[in-house]
Each structure stands twice: as structure tokens, then as C-alpha cells.
């Protein structure tokens, strides 16, 4: 290889020059905090959440102390601007998927409000493994059929425009008849590298609604918490739980 080729073509040199500009612009942006506001939902945990928290906020909310500088890991446990991986973080757990208010349409219009608030069923009647395992687990179809084998749709409530349209309980029975699981859509999605244990939280006295919101009041389940790392850490710090990375990251 001679010297000439090593120096590269003019085009390539120009490209390199532009790259330097890009870097400078990024740096300036960093200082003036442009991306800060853009990524604010991701970067800061407490402020945004505190404003948007629904009525379920606990008394701890008011006494929340500002994050201390030596509270654990670098940059208070938050990803840094200069963390090059931030693009990936954003892509994988970005605004649309991870933000609050995610309310997917489910294969069966199951109403928690009807079952919990009106019929006074306990959470653990269906989600029976929540205090036994890391997974709260969606109840087996058999569990639904346990009641709905005898409970039929109320003809007064079932106002059907199309007579062929199936009621929700009929849909459920169809799944059971076909021995098929109901393909529920996840409302709360944990990233793959997070180890979350329901059992430990339940046993530590964290009630369901602290993370999941007032599910008993929901007809369609909606995500009320961002479930981002900062959000987790806020609570862990308040309660003196472990903030060691390896506790939650696998």
C-alpha cells in the first residue's frame, strides 16, 4: 500500500471533515441541553413522574428527597448523554413502548373493574402465583372456566348489533374448547436483561396498585407507570432496598 491510497480520496476526506462538525454540534447540543429535553422522559425519573402520577400516589411522594450524588452508581443510576448506547436504549425501550398510557386491545374484553370492584374478587384468586414465584402469571384458561362454566352472559348486558357476533364469555369458551391459550397482549413489558421478582415485592409489602395503578377501576388495563430504571430506583432508595445493579440486571 502506498502513501497515496492511504490518504484517501477527496470525498472521504470531506466526509471526515463533516464528521468533525457533527461531533462539535453534538457537543454543543449537549451543553445547551437540547437533547436533555428531548430525552427527558428517559433520563429523569422523578420530576416527570411526580407530575403525571395518578391519584394513587402515596404519602412518600411528598417527602421524596432529591437524589443524592453518592446514592450509588455513576450519574445517579441514570444513563448518561455520552453513553453511546443511548440510541439503542431509546430504540429498544423508547417512547412509544415504554411510556405510560399503553393500553393495547386484548383478544377478550376482560374487565378488571367488573371482577374486582363489582364482584369483589381478590387479585390473588386469579394471579395465584404472585406471592410464590417471580411471575404473577396470567391465570390458566381453566381458572376462568371454573366460574364461567356455569356463569353465562347476561342477556340484558349483551347488546349485540350482529347476532353472529360472539360474546366475550363465548370467546373464552371457544378458546377452552380448542385447548388454546388466550393470546393476551402484554401491558407491562420488562426488558430482557431485567430480573423482576413479584414474590419479593409482594412479601416486602408493596401493594399491587403501587406499580400497576388502580386496576380494579380499569375496564381495559392500562400502563400507569413508566417502569423505567429510574422509576424503580426511586422506590428502592426510598425503602432502602438494594440498588446494586446485579439485583435487577441479569
Amino acid at each position, binding site marked *: 500500500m502506498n502513501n497515496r491510497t492511504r490518504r484517501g480520496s477527496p470525498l472521504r476526506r470531506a466526509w471526515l471533515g463533516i464528521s468533525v462538525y457533527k461531533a462539535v454540534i453534538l457537543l454543543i447540543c449537549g451543553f445547551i441541553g437540547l437533547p436533555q429535553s428531548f430525552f427527558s422522559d428517559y433520563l429523569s425519573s422523578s420530576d416527570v413522574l411526580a407530575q403525571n402520577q395518578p391519584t394513587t400516589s402515596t404519602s412518600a411522594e411528598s417527602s421524596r428527597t432529591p437524589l443524592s450524588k453518592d446514592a450509588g452508581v455513576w450519574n445517579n443510576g441514570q444513563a448518561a448523554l455520552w*453513553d*453511546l448506547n443511548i440510541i439503542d436504549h431509546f430504540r429498544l425501550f423508547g417512547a*412509544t413502548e415504554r411510556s405510560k398510557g399503553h393500553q393495547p386491545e386484548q383478544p377478550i374484553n376482560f374487565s378488571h373493574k367488573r371482577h374486582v370492584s363489582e364482584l369483589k374478587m381478590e387479585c390473588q384468586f386469579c394471579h395465584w402465583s404472585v406471592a410464590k414465584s417471580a411471575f404473577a402469571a396470567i391465570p390458566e384458561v381453566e*381458572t376462568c372456566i371454573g366460574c364461567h362454566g356455569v356463569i353465562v352472559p347476561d342477556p340484558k348486558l349483551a347488546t349485540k348489533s350482529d347476532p353472529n357476533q360472539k360474546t366475550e364469555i363465548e370467546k373464552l369458551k371457544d*378458546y377452552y374448547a380448542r385447548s388454546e391459550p388466550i393470546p*393476551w397482549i402484554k401491558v407491562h413489558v420488562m426488558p430482557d436483561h431485567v430480573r423482576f421478582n413479584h414474590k419479593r415485592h409482594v412479601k416486602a409489602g408493596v401493594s399491587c396498585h403501587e406499580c400497576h395503578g388502580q386496576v380494579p377501576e380499569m375496564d381495559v388495563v392500562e400502563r400507569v407507570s413508566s417502569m423505567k430504571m429510574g422509576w424503580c430506583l426511586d422506590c428502592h432508595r426510598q425503602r432502602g432496598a438494594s440498588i446494586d445493579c446485579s439485583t435487577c440486571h441479569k
Partner: protein
Amino acid sequence: MSAEGTSESNKEGLMSGNLVDLKSGKDGSLGGKVNTTGATNASSSNNVSRRRFLQILGSAPVVGAAAGCTDQNTQQVLPYVNRFDQQIVGESVWYNTTCTECSAGCGIQVRTAEGRAIKIEGNVANPINKGGVCAIGHSALQHLYDPDRVRQPLKRRADGKGFDPISWDQAIKEISQRLSDPDLSKRAFIDGGRASAITDLVTNFSKAFAIKRASFDFNPNVVEAKAAELVFGSKGLPTYVFDQADLVVNFGAGFLESWVSPVEYARAFAKAKRADHPVRLVHFEPRLSLTAANADHWYCNKPDSELSIALAILKLLNERRLGEALSEGVSSSISAIVSKLDLERLISQSGIEFSKLVTVVEYLAQAKNSLVLAGGVPTSGEKGLALAVVVNLINLLLGNVGKTIMLSGARAVGSSLDPLLELTQQMLKGQIQTLFIDGSNPVFKLPASFEISYALKRVETVVSFSSHMDESTVLAHYILPTNTTLESWGDVLALEGVYSLTQPVMKPVFDTRDLGEVLILIAKAAGKSEVAEGQSNFYNFVKARWQGFHAKLGLAIDFERFWLECLERGGYYEPRKDRIRVDVNNKAFEIVTQALKSEAVSIAGDAHSELVVYPFASVRSFDGGSANRPWMQEIPDPLSQTVWDAWAEIHPDTAKAKGLAAGDMINIKNYHGAVDLPIYLTPHLHKDVVAVPLGYGHTDYGRYAKEVGANVLSLIPKQVNNGTLGLLSVRASVTRGRGRSTLVNVQGSDSQLGRGLARTAALGAVAAHDGHDADHGSGHGSAHAGHHEPKQMYEQREHPLYKWGLSVDLASCTGCSACVAACYAENNIGIVGKKLMDQGRELSWLRIERYYDGSADEMSVSFLPMMCQHCGNAPCEPVCPVYATYHNEEGMNVMVYNRCVGTRYCSNNCSYKVRRFNWYELSYPEPLNWQLNPDVTPRVTGIMEKCTFCVQRILQAKDKAKDEGRMVRDGDVKPACVQSCPSEAMAFGNLNDPDSKVSKLAKSKRAYKVLDHHINTQPAVTYLENVKYKEA
């Protein structure tokens, strides 16, 4: 995927991830058709199979990460349809069963998560392995999830090329019709033949249809058993009590790697080595095997001269007038034999110095409990039986029977090869019309000179029950794939008084069935229902058999409870009874006299120009059954440190004389065949020998096995000695072959360069002193942990509750690599293939380093298991720009994957080179990915990974401790490596607790930390020096 461009050989097919189709060898069109049960379209959500359901529910994290970026808005969470008792989502279920990878019969526990087997561990209750598992045992999972398995019954096409799928009902109907046809009455069955339920059923089946039976067992140990019968009058192989011995003299038996029951023996041997008076191992073998590497004294004798050495020892011992307790007749017979011996001639034949033999005899005469063994390659020779008899006579003379050799609780052995030879002759003559064959694969595991593949082609209809497309199965007409052991019912009776059960740990992965079930169905269809002894299916057959055991044992509990308890424990284990009475058969002396008459060296070939072919079974390849398991290709051979290949070991002097050099391919050739292999120069074998590992050179069997290395058996003549394949029987010419070697060696340096990484303390020449106050060899320096703590400039870290630490006892470690396999299985470690291994891009978190120290005469081999040291003062931590690696409160060096940006600074700065970087995103062909542990994230491209001390297990133990309101107790946490270690060389626990095993060991006199005294890294891993005797 980025890796696709780089994959050239089929071994790297793993990374391209699209090789789900079954390779049928010749016929490529088969794949799509056969691939019915395994593959479901992952993107379709309407058609949800059980697999898809499990994928999302249980191991969604795992699969999601492997697949990269999935749309999180549409991720599903699927519930079970029905509720299962005792099944809690997220909690694993363990099943006790028995390993059938070799005939040792170790008890295993299989962890299943949401219906999939994901990890194998040893069953502590089993008296054979007591909790250890070998590397091949771990890899049984990859046998189960082998993507190249036969996925449904197949029938050969009419034109003979390729297979078509056939339904089970149709196949069973066609085969039963053949069995009912009186014109097709010449039938045969080749099976494994070890004592078990399935063998009993095959016997019934054979009787019902007048089927000729021939059993094939690669490693039958019939010679050793016959010698024991002749000398001790016992049946089966006696129990060798290594932990009672203070001296073991061994003629070629690889009891720490491949002989009889390596896990059992390694455990007992390590126990004897940790004793106050450590055992001394004297090993005679022409090659440095793994057992030889663990010996205190390894003597490199001339090949096939073991009988001469044993006789010389017998003569010298007899002159010392030992064995007074023996009866008149026996001692006079021994005297009669040894009086005829010419000591000088024997010694010149052996190539061992006389003074060394005298020393060995001195050791034997002084030892309280000695044990003399012969086995493996030397006993497969013509004089093998005589050797085994002489060795037993030495044991008799030394009074070892009843001390280190127990005749009760004998081990069942395999069957002789002779019936198979006879059957092959009949097949070649066209006298067999229908042949049934199980998965024992004699075409590959026996030399080509046995002509089994020709014989199979002469049979009208061959029915194979193998679930793998092995070399015997590709020649079949019907392939009825049967379940692997992890999917089937059965039992194993390896030892007298040890009844082990096998039970299915999961539903069959593919459309396969139990062999017993298939035989019962065929028999029923052919109108012979007596085969199943009145039972409706194979499960009931096994249960009825156990009802018989229950009655025989005369236990107080009722059968149903006994059965459930056995299922829970893995079997029933009788307490051992000792029987010492010895009946010496006079035929024993005849055999020795006969052997003395024959030629001194019985190896065919030109002794001047040709080298003796020395095939050996290694811990990695064994007999070749593990070849299609990527773990077993990727884990380096502990001695040669090579991967993904076979090799030919040659002494450098011999190579020089023949004009060969490192990096050559060599051609080994004789009358029987030829193989091309990469050369591996090592001074640690006899100059007259070329040593080649067995189990390579598959022509079929699967994508990972195919065309890796060459099969040394193609050089071996058709010779069966006392029912065993004569491995040591031929010479071959060695010349330079075509091309250059692509052998990949992962060991950087063979020498420790005086750094004292793996230390060995030399014990005194005559006897050990109390407490191993060894005199330390030179070059190690005087810096020992605890002798004088270095002054620290900075404030030291505090660990308020736990400070996790590991200890590795090098005196117990045999280098068997079981821990490496366990680590691969537990931590979802990726397989990179040969090419990337060559570039140093392997991902193993734990490796076994091998060092040769000392001079060629007084050489010592050290094995050093090297994993992340979890330094208290870690060099990797301060250089990470993104805080992805840090020291936590429990003394661990934690790696946060999602924070890592891949600068690799940490790896550069790591003094132990234990950090691994993910250069590519690795995916697994279905269903190999079913094995992934849901507790551990598979890593993505561009991040660093390393040993975590199995942090997931620590958290599980803490979780359990919190439930019970206590601290984690010592022994609660066992990382995968610690759990699987056959020789109990490792311990893990809390260093803050002064009573924990690991902190006691850390204070041992033998304790040291690797490199700590040079660079003050303060590792959490403590090593305990090896202890070896000095040569007298």
C-alpha cells in the same frame, strides 16, 4: 446477521441460524418435509403451538434477546390452558433420572423450566457419582435438542435414494407384517446389551420372533471382568476403593477420563489425594493421558510392554516373600510362573529403567493399602487378559482384596464382540433378511475392517431405532426414531445393589417414541402380546419389573410408595455388603503361561519404519457419540488444548526423523486404511507411537460432527481379543500429507514462565509429613496469602453481609473439563466455531489452563481452572468509561450488560484474561435454543461478558433465605462449576463467615491467589496448591 458473511464451514452454521432442516446426507430435498414437528412460524400469532406458548411465557426474555428487536407492543403473554399440580410458572421443576451416556450409570437431576429440560446436575443420593457429572453428561441436553435429529419415522424410497416420511402406524404395520411372514424368518437385533429394562424387553422380543441377538458395546470391560473372575472368583467388575488407597499403580486404565466410571473414580481418588497421607499414583502408559497427567510418576513404557512390567513387578514382589496369607497352591503357582522369567529381558522389553521399577516395587511393599489396575488400551491387546490376570495376582499378593478391591457390589459389564462378528459374517453371506439396530452405531464405532457397512447393505430390510442420522442409520430402510434417555422410561442396573430409574423429564421434542413402546406395538401388531409380559405399555413393563425388585428386596413399605420414592430419589440404593472370599481359578496361571509363550510384541507392522497406532478415548470425544454436540467440540481437550478437530500426537524427535514439522498435515497409512490428520508435536509420548483420539471423522451424524477430523479406527484391523476390540494391534506409516494443518490450540503458553500460576508442592520422597508441609518448588517466590499482607495505599472496600468467594483445590482437580461444560449450560454461553476460536474469540467463562513444567524427564502437568477472579482491587473496573463493571457490596465484580458499550478496555486491563467480547450476534438453530437458561440473558453483539459466580443462583439462594427469614447458609449457593465437579475440587461460600468451607480453605497452608503477590488484585478466588510426590 453480521456473522453470516464469515461462516464458511458447516460448523459455523450455528451463527447463520437458518439450518433447521435435517441433513439427510445425500438427499437435500428431505429437509422441508421432515421439518413438521419442530418448526412453527414464530411471527404468526394465530396458530400458537405449545412451543410458541412456552417461548413467550417462560423464556420470553431469552428468546426475545436472541431474536434481537421484537415489537414490544404486540408481545403476547400466554397462559396455560390447564393447571398442573406442583407447576408454578417461573419455578423450575427437577426430575431425578439416570445418565446413559456411558455405562457408568451416574444419577442425574434435570432442571426443567416450563416443560423444557435446561440443565443437568448430579444426583447426590446416587452412590456412584454422588453429585458429580462429567462434561459429556452435561452435553446430553444437546443430544436431546440436536437440530439434526430424525424428527419423525422415515422410510427409504423405492429407488434407494433418500427417505420419505411415514406415519408411525404405517411403519409399525409394515414391520409387523414382515415379522409375521414365515418366508422372512432370518432376523437379527443389534443392541447395547447392558442390564436394563429395555434389554429385557429386547430379549423377550427376540425370543418371540426367533431373532438372533448380538450386543455391541464400545467399552465392554469384559477383559477386566474375566481376569477378576479367574483370580478372585467374582462376577462382574470388582469395586475399586480408591479413597482407601495410599498407592495406585496403574497400567493404562484411564480411570479419570474414560475407563469404566470416571466420575465415581475421580471423586474417590481426589478424596484420597486430600487425605493427610495423600495417595501416590504411578502410571505406566506410552502416552501422557489425562490420568497420566494426574500421576505423581508417569513412566512412558514401550507400547504393549505392560505385561512385561507387571511380570517384573510380580517377580520382584514375590522375591520379597509377600503374600503369606495366600494358600499354598496359589503361592507355589505364582512362584512357578515367576521362576521362569528373565528379569533383564522383561526390562529391556519395557523400555523402563530397572532402578525405577525397583522403586515402584519398594512403594508397593511399603504401602499399607495399595491398588494395582490395568485397563483401557493395554488390556485390549492380545496379551490384555494375561496383563489383567497378573495385575490381579499382584493385588492378591499384596493383600488388597477386601481393602481396596471389594468383590461385592460388582459392576455389570458389557457383552463380548464375538456374537456381532458372527452375525456380520451371516449378514455378508446374505443370511439375514431383517435387521433391527438401536442407536449403538457399530458402523462408526467399529473399524471399517469389520465390514459392518457392507454387511448392512446385504440385508434386505434394516430397521434403525436411532433418533440420529448416524453412519449405521443412513443405511437403514426404516428409521423409527426413539426417545433419548431424557424423554423415556427405563432403568439402569450398573452396580449390584444399585437400581437406578430413568424417567422422562419432558415431552418428546420431536415425533419420537420410547423404544420399548415401539417394540411392544410391533409385537402386538404381529400377534405376540407376550413380549410385554402382559403389560399394556412400556411404562407398565418397567413398573412391573420394579415390582419384582421390590419383592426380591423384601422391603417393609408397600410397592406404590416404594415406586414413588424411587422416582423421587432416582432409584433404590442398597447398602453395600462386603465379600472377601477369594477363589483363584488355576486357569488364570495357564493364561499367563500361554501369553509368555507368544511373541514379545504382538503389534503387526514394520517396527523400523512404521509407528504404533495408539487410539485413545478422551474426556471430550469418548467413542464419538458426543460429536454432534457443539459444546463438546468447542470445549478444548484438556491436554492438547485443541478444539473442533482431531489430531495426531507425535514425538518431536520422530517427526524430525521423518521430516515432519509443526503445522503439517500427516498421512497415516497401513494395509487397512489411511487417515489425514493435523500433526500435534508433544514430547510426552513414546517415540514409537502415533496417538490419535477416537470419535472423530463422522461421515454423517449431523452438522457439527460431520467431517471434523478423521476416524482412526479405519487403521485398525479386524481383531477381537477376549471379546474386546483390539485397539493396540497395528503399526502404520506416517508421511507428510497434503495441505497445512488448521489445528486450533487455545493454550497460549505451555510454560508458566516462573509466575507460579498453578503451583505444585512436592512431597518428600519416602512419606508425606503431616499437614502437607511441603517444600515449595523454586520459582514460586515466598509470597503466600496470609504470610505477610501487603500495605494498601487506599481505603479498602467493606462487605457488610456477604463476601462471596470460591476456592479451587488443584490437588483434587483432574482437568476433566466438567465444570466448563456446566458453565456453558448454565450461562447460555455462545458457540463460536473453529474459525472464531482461532481468532481467540471464544466465549467460555471458565477455561482449564494446562501447563507443562520441569524438565522432560521430571515433567509435571498442572491444570488451572481459570474464571473471573472477582478481584477486590480489579484492574477492569477503573478503566470502564461507562461504569458497566463495578465492585458490589458482596465482593463480586459485576458486569452490567445493558450499560456496556464495548470499548474492551476492561479486557485489555484484565490480568487473568477472563473477559470475553461478543463480536457477533449468535443464534441457535431450533431446537438447540430450547436449552437456554431463562435466568441468564444471552448477550448481544458488542458487549463484554464474563463469569458472574452464577449470580442468578446466589439471588435464588437469597430469595429462599429471605422467605425463611435467615441468612444464606454455607452450601446453599453452588455455582454450576462447583456443583458439577466430579472430584469436589471447588467450594463456594461466604468469606465473611469464618465457619464456611471456603473461608477455612482460604486459610489453608496450601492456599494462594494467582498473581496477587505481583499486582495486588486481591482475588476472591483462592487456589490450593497441588500436591505431588517427588521421584525417589
